């Protein structure tokens, strides 16, 4: 009897929660931490005192899960390249998709893609290589619906290393493109 009532209340709460989630604007703030939070609350359906209802953790929709994962991925702004290469490695596909999703939802937002290289090769060649890396990322984002007007590419070549030194480890950290909002 009481269990039945509890389940009914729960069902109502879940449907309200889901509706609220659907109604919330998908743009700007993708943070879903407030919409899903539910705690104990008093029922107001006229039942006499002495009872308390509880609720379960609301299930996230696939879309919400995706947005949460994208928000997390977007904390990361750097993708890395192989030596003398400007091809986007498959391991960075999801990261760039997360940024593209955000940018295409927010067409007024612009991003600068910085292209960087390791120290090998001449500074002038590396400026060109850094630009090719930046352009390669820009093309990737455009193919996912980001407008050309939202993207600027600036190559710094080998002039702004992330890691110092002449080790393979330092080089691999310096061959990068950085998305700067």
């Amino acid at each position, binding site marked *: 009897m009481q269990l039945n009532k509890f389940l009914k209340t729960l069902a109502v709460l879940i449907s309200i929660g889901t509706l609220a989630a659907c109604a919330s604007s998908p743009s700007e703030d993708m943070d879903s931490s407030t919409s899903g939070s539910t705690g104990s609350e008093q029922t107001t359906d006229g039942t006499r005192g002495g009872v308390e209802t509880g609720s379960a953790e609301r299930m996230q929709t696939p879309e919400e899960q995706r947005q949460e994962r994208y928000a997390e991925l977007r904390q990361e702004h750097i993708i890395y390249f192989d030596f003398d290469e400007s091809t986007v490695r498959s391991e960075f596909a999801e990261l760039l998709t997360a940024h593209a999703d955000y940018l295409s939802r927010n067409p007024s937002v612009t991003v*600068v893609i910085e292209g960087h290289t390791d120290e090998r090769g001449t500074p*002038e*060649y590396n*400026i060109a290589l850094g*630009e090719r890396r930046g352009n390669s990322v820009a093309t990737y984002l455009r193919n996912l619906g980001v407008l050309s007007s939202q993207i600027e590419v600036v190559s710094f070549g080998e002039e702004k290393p992330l890691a110092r030194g002449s080790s393979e480890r330092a080089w691999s950290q310096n061959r990068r493109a950085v998305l700067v909002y």
Partner: protein
Amino acid sequence: MKRVLIGLLVVWVSLTAALSNATAQSTLEIVITEGQNSARPIAVVPFQWLGEGEAPYNFAEIIMADLRRSGRFNPIDQGQMPGQPGKDLDVSDYAAWARLGVEAMLVGEVSLLSGNRYQVTYELIDPLRGQITGGTAQALVDGALVNSNDHVIEGRSSVVGPNQFRQYSHRISDVVYEALTGERGAFLTRIAYIYVDFEQENPYHLMVSDYDGYNERVLLRSPEPLMSPSWSPEGNRLAYVSFENGRPEIFLQDIYTTEREKLTSFPGINGSPSWSPDGTKMAMVLSKDGAPDIYVMDIASRNIEKITDHWRIDTEPYWTPDGKSLTFTSERGGRAQIYRVDLDTKRVRRVTFEGEANLGGVVTPDGRGLVVVNRDNGQFHIGRQEYPNGNFQVLTQTTLDESPSVAPNGSMIIYSTTHNGKQVLALVSMDGRFRARLPSREGEVKAPAWSPFL
């Protein structure tokens, strides 16, 4: 052979000891990494001070360092000398000097004229000729027999102030070098370079110093990268790339007045400026149309002309001395190689074929050589290719060599290399036999550009 090696070692030790005293305030300091035993022995006798107390300056030390660095001369240890004459008249025994095997001996005197003016007099003597003639050769001039003193190759005198001592020493080196080699000396020249110290608030510095690293001056400090200094042919202005506005732009700066102007700010790359031999045009790399291509700008009108048009990377333009063509680096054939484009016909021809790749091409002042960064087995070294026969020689054995720049007399190459995990400058003679390193005390030193004759 052993004697030569010991001789070199002695000179090396005395030279580095002398230099380490003299360069306390300087960022650059020459360390000779490899001598060459084919360098010609020469005696630079300490200049005699004719005044009271200590000599005001050690001219011989600067001149010895210059001549040694050129790779052409091997100044002998002063301890070996049979005496310290200040002028030809004081040389008592030419045979004793000739026995040392020296090709020439430089002697000089310094005296105080008045206040802050000093008289510096020097003579360059051929001791072998002196031994034969006894220093009293006679020759017929206009039908009369006169003392010819033909064992004295050069003899000059000048009045200089104390702040000109170092410069005048380089001037003497130039005179000695030209008298003995027939080529103009390049010791009175400068280098521009980029100095980076990430510990500083404004890490990037555009610098100018004498060719040997002394008299450093900061021309520009910036929080953002500076690149690619290139000298105007008159030697009074520099073109360079600055990222001060968040993206690359080409600037021109007068090195004496600090006057500065922005030359280009196209979308994309504005890079690799190279001043034409007549000073009216600037070759550069722009990527405003997509891929980086070579352009030539008329500096007065700012009109640009597109010289190359290829979807792959074209960069690093450099003028041939006649101003009629450019060499440049291109990936159009796969890996980067040096190509040459005729500015009238726009016809492009590939120039380099050695190794995996060649970049950063610089044409030598006589137009008969091309200095490149050669990549072979993943190693980057400075190489030289002769034109037109194509003979190729790797000149350096250092690590990650780049940015070669040639002295205006074609005798030496200054370039950027990596030593102990830091970028430093190094010198190599055009034949690759003499090598020296110019280590910095802290930070990275790169992108050297050798000035024209000043």
